[in-house]
Structures are given as structure tokens and as C-alpha cells.
């Protein structure tokens, strides 16, 4: 195979998206992302979703904001307007309550939060999940996310179908998701 750089990136975007979609349809299950570089993992991951049509806000590491702007041409906006919120240290520092949750007519016009955490699949925070995409009940363990952050996530998703969808990315390049349709509890 002798692909151009652009072609390589396009195909990688397709593969990344497929993992994100699989994660979103199986809340709480952890999936490895192929070809994810160690340093720019979140930038690589969101390249398949973000472009100049989307607004984003980074909470935490400002280097990530620069990298995302450069890679995706997405606009940096305030947290309250952002389509994508990237919480580089597993916390939105209280901003979660002010993010877009959509309207009853258009619940899709809501934020997606990407939490960068230490680890998925093991850790000190254990969650139980039920709802669409989950066969009965499943468990998700995380390291690097505060239990209060998670409680806030549950609060902002109390008025379904309004809400915020969460993606998680760990240091080993694995993803998991908790869409708003999932009912969650802390063990």
C-alpha cells in the first residue's frame, strides 16, 4: 500500500469513528482505538468529528486547545456554546452545569464532553450502567475521574432527552462512552 498522507488520515478517521460509534452504542464497554499516537491522542480521536462547523472548549491543558485548532480548524468558543468540551484532566471544574443540553425540540443541539482519564477498565471509581446499548446491567471502572464530576454528569442528564453525552479516553488509547440515555449509579 502506497497511500498519500491525506489518504492515510482519511482512512484513520474512518477507523477512529467506528470505534467511537461502537463505544457510544455499547455504554460502559471499553474499546481500544487503533493507530492512536501517544501524545496527540485526543486530537487524533476528534479529527473524525470536529471541523470549522464545530465549536470547542478545552478545560485544563491549553496545549491541547492549540493542537485541536491546528488539526481540525474547529473554533474555540466559550464553554456554554461549545459542541465539544475536552476535559484534559478528567474534570470540567464545575462547568458541566452550564454546557449546552439542547432543547426539547432539538435535544441533539447539545454538548459532547470528552474526558481524558488515567485508565478505563480498572480504577477507584466503579459505576453501574443500565439503558439502551446495555444488556441488563454493566459496570465501568475508571481511574482519574472525581466522583463529584460523575455525580454532576448524572444531574445534568436527569431531564432526558435533554442532556450531555460523555466520551472517555484513557492513557492507553482506549475509549468508552456514557450517552445521556444511560442510567448510572456509583458502587
Amino acid at each position, binding site marked *: 500500500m502506497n497511500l498519500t498522507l491525506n489518504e492515510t488520515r482519511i482512512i484513520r478517521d474512518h*477507523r477512529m*469513528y467506528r470505534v467511537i460509534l461502537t463505544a457510544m452504542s455499547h455504554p460502559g464497554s471499553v474499546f481500544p482505538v487503533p493507530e492512536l499516537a501517544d501524545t496527540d491522542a485526543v486530537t487524533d480521536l476528534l479529527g473524525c468529528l470536529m471541523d470549522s462547523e464545530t465549536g470547542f472548549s478545552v478545560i485544563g491543558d491549553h496545549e491541547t486547545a492549540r493542537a485541536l485548532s491546528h488539526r481540525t480548524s474547529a473554533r474555540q468558543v466559550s464553554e456554554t456554546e461549545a459542541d465539544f468540551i475536552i476535559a484534559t484532566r478528567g474534570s470540567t471544574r464545575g462547568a458541566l452545569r452550564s454546557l449546552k443540553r439542547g432543547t426539547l425540540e432539538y435535544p441533539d443541539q447539545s454538548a459532547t464532553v470528552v474526558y481524558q482519564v488515567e485508565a478505563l477498565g480498572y480504577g477507584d471509581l466503579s459505576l453501574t450502567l443500565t439503558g439502551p446499548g446495555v444488556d441488563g446491567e454493566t459496570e465501568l471502572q475508571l481511574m482519574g475521574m472525581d466522583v463529584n464530576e460523575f455525580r454532576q454528569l448524572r444531574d445534568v442528564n436527569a431531564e432526558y432527552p435533554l442532556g450531555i453525552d460523555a466520551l472517555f479516553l484513557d492513557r492507553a488509547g482506549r475509549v468508552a462512552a456514557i450517552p445521556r440515555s444511560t442510567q448510572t449509579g456509583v458502587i
Partner: protein
Amino acid sequence: MRMSEWLTTHLEKNDDHRNLGYPFGFMDEGAKREIRRAVLKAVAIPGYQVPYGSREMPIARGWGTGGLQITLSLVTPEDVLKVIDQGCDDSVNAVNIKTFVAKVAGIPVTTDTVMASLIQTRHRIPEEPMSRDQILVLQVPYPEALREVEPSEAETRRMHAEADYARMWLYLYEDIVRFGEITISYRYPVTVNGRYIMDPSPIPRWDVPKLHRAETLFLFGAGREKRIYAVPPHTDVVPLEFEDHLFRVEDFSDKFCARCGATDTFLDEIIDSENGGRTYFCSDTGYCAKRSVS
């Protein structure tokens, strides 16, 4: 140039999407990203119709462009593709879409449901159960289940927002008063995840129970109407019914497929124009062919 001509020329000349002058997946990246974002929201809000900017495709709107755009936005080089049209692998529309996607993504095709990782379909869900590793993309002509009772888009959006479905129930009730049963044969309305009433696309009643708590992700694309919606795996999909008028599927008792002998599949009725005799064949041709061989 017509798509069929284009496909024929390029199929013979090249065996590689890179030489076609189109990128992997055909569409521009901006279009793919918009569709991907819409699909993710659709999965997060099962049964809710996400508006999106439907693009021009090399086939006319109304011929599967909604399904095609979803397929092209998520296909990977590892996929094995199956495309069916009313259960049939070999109809013109199915073959054109299949050849096109296979070409612009450089992926193999199959008629075997079990072998496929990605299936695009019009008006049927395959008979063989699908797994959690597969995705079914359904082409949708009319995404709005409430359109029969309310012509205004603004009003149906309000009805969905408030879960105000009284008129839909009234419509079904009046149907029973008039005809003694609910007469909807395809596009049978369902409630998804206890919240949204959804049009499952023009699948027969036979296929509706397959959506309920399935292993598979179902994605619905309406290209002309510019809507995307989804049913994730393990999601409650309940057909609208009354306690004394329960939902039921088509009755094929005493009938069987004249080709493979199946008594447990959705059958197409073929009427002999000479003598008026009726024979039945499996609508799912891939499954029928598999059974006929073994």
C-alpha cells in the same frame, strides 16, 4: 455519465479506489463529519430524528441516499458489505449501491448476512439474527411516524418534544373502529426506549420484533427528508398496540417457500398470470440461497 456506466468503466479498468479520482469513502470530509456527529447524537437519543445537511449523491434522492451517506461516513477498509433491496441481493438498486460503496472503499461484498460486517438495506431486516459486531443501515423514505396524522413539521416536532402522541393513538383507535383492526401493514409505528414514537422504515410487520433488544446497532437514514435516527442494541422497541388489539405479524401458516421449503421466513406471494395459482418465495434471497444449497 450515468453511475452504471461509470461503475462499469472503472470496474474493468482499475481495482483500486485510489485510482478513481475520489477519496476513500467518496464524500468530502466535511460531509462525513457532519453525518458522523448526527449519527452519534441519534444513538445517544434513541428514536429521535436528528436533522442534517443531506448531500448530493450519484443516485437520485429517494433511492437510498440517506442510507448511502451513513454507510460512506462509517465504512472502514476492514468491512465486508452486503446490500439488499426488499430482501433481495440482486435487484438493480442494491447492486448499484453495493458496487459503488465497494469501489470507493475498496472492500469485498457478500450476500451472506453472517459474513457481512456492514449491511445496507431497503425495507427488510435479514432473517438471520445479526451480532453485536454488525451494523444495519436502513434506507428511509418518510422518517416522520406522525406525518399521517399531522402534515406540519413544526407541529410534529412539538408533539415529539412534549411526547404528545394522543392523535397517533386516536388514529389507531379509529382504524379499529372502522376495520376491526389496525390496518398499517408496513411502517408500523413503534415506541423506542419508552420515549419517542418512531417510523421503523417500510419494513413489514414481520421485521418489527427484530428491532426489540437486538444485539445489533440499527441506523436509519432519510436522504431526501434530511433526517438520521437510530436504535442502539438492547433497546426497547415496542409496536403501538391496545390491550384488546395486540400487534401481530403477517400470517404465513400453511405456506412455505417454493424454493427452499422454509416455513419460518417472510414470504413474497407470486401469482401465476396463466392460471391464477399462488406460490410463495422467501423475500430474503441470501438466506433462501444458503438454505437451498445445504
